[in-house]
C-alpha cells in the first residue's frame, strides 16, 4: 500500500507540470491583455488613455519579460510559498486570495456533499426497496427535477420565494464558520441545498440502480432465506456492494460540483474561488487563473487518490501492490 501511495504521489508532479504548462499557454494564446483591461477599467463608457501609459503599466507588471521567464517566475512562486505571486489587476497576493476564497468554496462543496450523501443514499435505497411503488416514483420525480432544473434558476427562484413569501433573505454579510457559525450556516445553507439537489439526484439514481442489481443477487436471497432481518440484509450485504460505483460517481462529480459554485457564489454573495477564477479569466489576470487552476488540478488529483484508497475500505477484495 505504501508503495502504491508513493507511486501515485510521484505521478502528481508530472501531471501538475503538464497542467501548469497548458494553463499558462492557453492564457497567453487568448487575445486580450491585462494591462489594457486595467487602463480601460473606466466604467461603462470607457476612458481614453495616453500613449506611453500602456507601456508603463506593462513594464510595471513585468509583462514585457520573455514568456519562459514569466513561466519560470510563476512556477517558482508556486513552490516557494508565494503560490503564484500577485494578481496583476489589483496586486493582491495569491496567498491572500486563496486563504480568503478557498475555504468558502471548500465548505460550500463540503456542505453540499454532506447533504447529498446523507439524503441520496437512503433515498436510493428506499427507491430500490419500494421499486415501482409510490416512494420510488416520488424519488424519481425529485431526482429527475434535480437533473433538469438549472441550479442558477433554482437559486434565483429560491431567493425570490423567501423574499416574497416569508419576507426574509439570507444574510448579506459573509462570516466564516469560526467567526460567527450561526450567520455562516444561515448564509451557506441555501446555496448548499441548491447544489446538493443536483448532486444528490445523480447519486440517488445510481444508488437505486445498483441496489436493484445487488438485491437480485443470489447471496442476498440466501441472506433473506437464512431469516436475517431486512435491515441487516440491506446494510450488511447489499449496500456495501452497491456503493462502489456510487463512490466513483461521487468523486467524479466533485469536479462538476466545484464548477457549479461559480454562479451560486455570485447569486448568494459568497467570496469563493469560482467567482475569482471567472473574473480573473475575463481580465486575463494570468497569475490568478494559473494558480487557482492548479489548486483545482491538485484537488482533483487528491480526490482521485482518496477514492482509490476508499475502495480498499469498502471492498476488501481490492488491494494495491
Amino acid at each position, binding site marked *: 500500500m505504501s508503495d502504491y501511495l508513493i507511486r501515485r504521489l510521484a505521478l502528481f508532479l508530472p501531471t501538475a507540470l503538464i497542467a501548469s504548462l497548458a494553463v499558462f499557454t492557453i492564457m497567453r494564446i487568448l487575445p486580450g491583455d*491585462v494591462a489594457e483591461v486595467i487602463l480601460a477599467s473606466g466604467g461603462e463608457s*470607457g476612458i481614453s488613455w495616453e500613449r506611453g501609459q500602456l507601456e*508603463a503599466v506593462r513594464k510595471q507588471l513585468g509583462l514585457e519579460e520573455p514568456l519562459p521567464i514569466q513561466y519560470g517566475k510563476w512556477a517558482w512562486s508556486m513552490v516557494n510559498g508565494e503560490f503564484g505571486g500577485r494578481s496583476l489587476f489589483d496586486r493582491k497576493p495569491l496567498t491572500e486570495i486563496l486563504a480568503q476564497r478557498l475555504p468558502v468554496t471548500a465548505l460550500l462543496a463540503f456542505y453540499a456533499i454532506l447533504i447529498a450523501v446523507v439524503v441520496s443514499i437512503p433515498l436510493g435505497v428506499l427507491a430500490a426497496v419500494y421499486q415501482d411503488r409510490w416512494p420510488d416514483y416520488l424519488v424519481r420525480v425529485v431526482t429527475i427535477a434535480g437533473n433538469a432544473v438549472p441550479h442558477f*434558476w433554482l437559486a434565483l427562484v429560491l431567493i425570490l420565494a423567501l423574499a416574497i413569501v*416569508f419576507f426574509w433573505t439570507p444574510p*448579506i454579510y459573509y462570516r466564516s464558520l469560526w467567526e460567527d457559525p450561526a450567520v455562516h450556516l444561515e448564509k451557506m445553507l441555501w446555496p448548499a441545498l441548491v447544489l446538493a439537489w443536483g448532486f444528490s439526484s445523480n447519486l440517488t439514481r445510481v444508488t437505486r440502480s445498483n441496489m436493484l442489481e445487488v438485491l437480485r443477487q443470489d447471496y442476498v436471497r440466501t441472506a433473506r432465506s437464512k431469516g436475517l432481518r431486512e435491515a441487516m440484509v440491506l446494510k450488511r450485504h447489499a449496500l456495501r456492494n452497491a456503493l462502489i460505483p456510487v463512490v466513483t460517481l461521487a468523486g467524479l462529480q466533485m469536479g462538476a460540483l466545484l464548477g457549479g459554485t461559480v454562479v451560486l457564489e455570485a447569486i448568494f*454573495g459568497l467570496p469563493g474561488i469560482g467567482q475569482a477564477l471567472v473574473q480573473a479569466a475575463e481580465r486575463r489576470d494570468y497569475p490568478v487563473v494559473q494558480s487557482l487552476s492548479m489548486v483545482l488540478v491538485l484537488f482533483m488529483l487528491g480526490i482521485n487518490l482518496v477514492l482509490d484508497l476508499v475502495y480498499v475500505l469498502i471492498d476488501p477484495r481490492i488491494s494495491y501492490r
Partner: protein
Amino acid sequence: MPLRFVVLFAHTSGRGGRNSAKGRTRGCWKNPERGGAVNIYLGGVMAVSLLVLACGRAGQGGGDSGAPASGEPKRGGIMVLANRGEVPVGMDSMVTSTVNLIHVSSSVFGDGSLVKPCREDVAKVCPALAERWEARNDFAEWEFKIRDGVLWHDGTPMTAEDLKFWMDLAYNGVKGDKTRAPARYRTNFGPLNKVELLDQNRLRVTLDRRTAFLPDLMGLEQAVKVTHPRHLMQKKIEQGEPGASPQDLGFVGMGPFKLDKFDAATLVQVRRFDKYWEKDQGGRQMPYLDGIDFVVIKDATAMDAAFRTGRLDGTSKGLGHVLSPERKKTIEQALGDKVWFGEVGVTAMSVNFNVLRSGPWADARVRRAFALWLDKEQAIKAVSLGSGELHTGLSDPWRHPDWKSLPGFDISPQGRERAKAEAKRLLAEAGYANGWQEANYTCRKQWFVACEFVQAQLAALGIEAPIKFLDEAQWPLNLRQGDYNITNGGYDALMPENLDIRRATQSPASYTKHEDPAIDAFYARLGDATAQEQRVATYRELERYVLQEQAYVIPLLKEIGYLAYRSHVKNLPVAKLEYNFNNDFATTWLDK
C-alpha cells in the same frame, strides 16, 4: 406558519412602460416577458426555511420607517448599501475608476480634490480642499488657497505640499528603475507645466497654455481624488515601491469616513472620521452617520430581494444593478412609502466609426446617412425598454437649444420621413444605394442588445453586418488597435474636454478613430475661451460639426434608471447627470 401553495413570477427582465421620474408610478404593471406566473410547490424548501426561521433570526421585514422626518439631522447609525462588485484591491483611482470603486472610495477620500462637484448641481464646481482659487497671467497660472485645519485620517495635518506631491505623482508618475505610470486621469490637470509651493497653504499651478476652466476639469471627473498621502508615499518610493496603492498606505484619506474593514470581495466598512473638516450650515460637524457598510452583492435579483426585506438601506450604483422601471415598480408595490427613488442617467450609448480605415464609413455622406436613418426613438424602446432618453453627448446648457429639431433627432413622423429620405439620397450619392457586406462590426459583449439593434437598422439599408462580440479583455485591445470599421461605445460627459472625440493619436482608446485637425482647432478655441458663453458657443459648433456634418459618432440613447433607498435615509443627494458624484455621504443621516 402554514404551508401554502405559492405563485411566483420567475425573475426576468420583463418591462413595463416608462414611469414617472419620481414618486409613485402610474400605469399597469405588465407580466414579465417569459410568459407570466410559474407555480411551484415549495414544501421541502418551506419546511427547511421554517426551521431556519424558527432557529435563526427574525424576519427582516419592511420595518418601521422611524420617527417622522424633521429638519434637524440625527447623528448615528450605520447605513448599509449594496455594491455591485468587488472593490478593486488597493482602491487606487489613479489606476482604475470603476463604479465599484468610486461608490466606496469617495467616503474615504472625499468627493473631488482641490475642488469637487457641487452637491446641489454636479455640473458646477465648489471648493473642497482648496478654499478659493484665482487665475492669473491670462489663465495660464492658477493659485489655490488650501484649506487650513484639514487632517489626514492618521491625524497628520494636510498642507499644500501634500497636494503638490499628489499632483506631481498623478501627472508624472515615477520614473527610473522602478516605475509608476501616471494616473489615468492626468489629462484632468490640463496642460500642466509645474506645480509650485508658494507657502504652507498656497499652490501655484502653471500651465503650458491658458485654460480658463481648469477647476471644472479637475472637479468634474470622479476619479480625481487625493489618495496618496505624501508622508507615507514618499517613504514607499524611497523603499523602491512606487506602485504602492492606498491600501499599501493604510487607506489614509481625508474624507468624512475612515476605513474600518476592507474585504474587497464581500464587505467594506467605513466609520465616521470625527475630525473631518466640513461642517453644515448650522455649524454642525459632518458626517452624521456613524458609518457605512458597503456589501458586495453581484446579483441584481439578490440585491432587490435583500433590499425588500430590509437587509439594505440602499441599492447599488452601476450598470446592471441600477433599477429598471419594472424593478422599481415591483419594489414600490412591495414597500409603498417605505422607499424613495432617485432617477439617474446610467449609460449613454453611441455608434462610432473608424474613419481611418478605407471603406464606406470613411465617406461622411455614408455616416450622415446612417445617423439620419437610425431610429433613436425605437432604440429607446428596444435597447433600454423605454427607460431612456435622447441625448447629444453633453446636456444643457451646452447643447444646441433646438437640438430636438435637428436632423436625426427630430422624432416626429414628418421628421423621420424627411430623415429617411435624405439618408437614402446620401447613400445613393455615395454609391451605396444597395448597401454592402460590412465585415468589421465589433461589439463589447455587455452591450449586445444595442449592437443587435444597430445591426437590424443597418440591415434595413442593405448593410449586412455580422457582429464580432468581444469580452472585457479583448475589447480594449480592439479599441486601441482600431481593428473595426464600426462599433458601439459611450458618448457622454459633463464638459467638452471629457468627451471621447479626440484624434486617435492623442487618445488611442477612443471609440471614434479619426485624425481630423478641425477637432483640434475646436478644442484650442475651447481652451482659449475665457467666458462660459464663448465656450458654449464654441461647443455648439463642435457638436454640429461632429454630429451633423461629419457624423463621427451617433449618440444612440441615454439609459435612465433608479436608485432605491429606504425612507429613513435622509438628505442623500442623487444626481441624475452623473451618479458617480455625491458619494461621500457626508450629508446623509438615518431617521430611525
